[in-house]
């Protein structure tokens, strides 16, 4: 069968995104959740018009394809994603391009440059940390450390309620709070 000539194909856009999550997310779960988010927010008709497809995904970053005239809707659907299989996630859209190559080159291959320099080089390689927030000490187990960001699991049970309220598993901290 002959493929459709380029002039007759629908025009597309490629959205590069990064994903921060509490735990590792598999590609299949993310696709399911994106489709579900689209179906609940804009319905089947809207989803079909958007033509959203997850092209590449490597646990942290990826590319979503969508119709060129439905970029804002696709953004909205991607933003309405809050959790995948009870793991909190957040999608940050890095940029939009007309080709996969440009999206990859301009948004995905750039190194993660955190503009805040580590002026105080404090190491948090310990298993346990103590933080001071508003003159209150919070101590807990370090779950993950990445650049300046630290996720901790607080020890004392009084914080459990706060975690439940916020719908997260860990407290988000930075090395500056140490």
């Amino acid at each position, binding site marked *: 069968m002959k493929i459709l000539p380029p002039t007759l194909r629908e025009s597309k856009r490629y959205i590069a995104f990064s994903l921060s999550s509490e735990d590792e997310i598999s590609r299949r779960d993310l696709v399911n959740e994106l489709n579900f988010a689209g179906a609940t927010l804009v319905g089947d008709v809207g989803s079909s018009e958007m033509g959203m497809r997850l092209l590449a995904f490597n646990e942290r970053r990826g590319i979503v394809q969508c119709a060129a005239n439905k970029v804002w809707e696709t953004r*909205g659907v991607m*933003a*309405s994603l809050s959790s995948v299989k009870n793991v*909190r996630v957040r999608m940050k*859209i890095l940029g939009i391009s007309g080709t996969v190559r440009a999206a990859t080159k301009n948004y995905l291959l750039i190194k993660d440059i955190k503009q805040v320099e580590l002026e105080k080089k404090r190491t948090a390689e310990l298993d346990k940390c103590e933080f001071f*927030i*508003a003159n209150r000490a919070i101590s807990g187990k370090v779950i993950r450390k990445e650049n300046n960001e630290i996720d901790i699991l607080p020890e004392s049970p009084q914080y459990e309620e706060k975690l439940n309220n*916020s719908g997260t598993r860990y*407290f988000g*901290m930075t090395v500056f709070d140490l």
Partner: protein
Amino acid sequence: MGVIKQSRFYDLNIHPLPDCAGSPARLVLEARDMGYSGICLTSFNSDNTFFEHDIPLPPFNDFEIYTGIEIQVERVAKLTKEVNRLRGRADIIIIGGGNEDINRASAENGKVDILAHPAAHGKPLNHVLAKAAADNGVAVDFNMDALIMQRGGSRIKVLTAMRQNLMLARKYTVPMVITSNARSHYDLRGPREMMALAMFLGMTQDEARNALSKVPKGIIKRNTDSNRIMEGVEVAK
């Protein structure tokens, strides 16, 4: 898209750690990373209020941090009392609405800056409240966490109410703000994502952009300008 690139975006309702899960420094870093020009850290409890010098971060030239209080009360008499007590303490006073009496009391109180999540229980504002809010300069908040966190019936209710609020806000030119009402850094969304979500409510792109940039900027300026004495009275130089 040049207009969006030039705008400075603000998110005026973000809850940091003593109440919720996310240290102020983390929220500031994440918000800055997403493209905001400033945020307002609001606490529920007035004893937990943060000030910029409390946050252990190197100073940023291009990022503004404001402090706010979200007052959550049940009774109207207490609301007035709390507003008068806390007005001088924080930059921005936000009322956690939803209840019809509280919505009305805050729309009629000129000292209130923002009426947050007025449609939380799925009940929209009415023409009387919209008119009062416009007269007193109280901004009506469209909280996007309702769209992000909820699914199904409850989201439909909130969306319907928000649509009604938008219609009233347009008719009576009530200032509109879009906030994330974030309780952790997973709830934060970039300015354009917030605009995209707001456009699902029927806002135009310009309205959404103003609700994230121009209106919050006006609220901040009104509260931090030392030359301003009260509504319509300013020290001229």
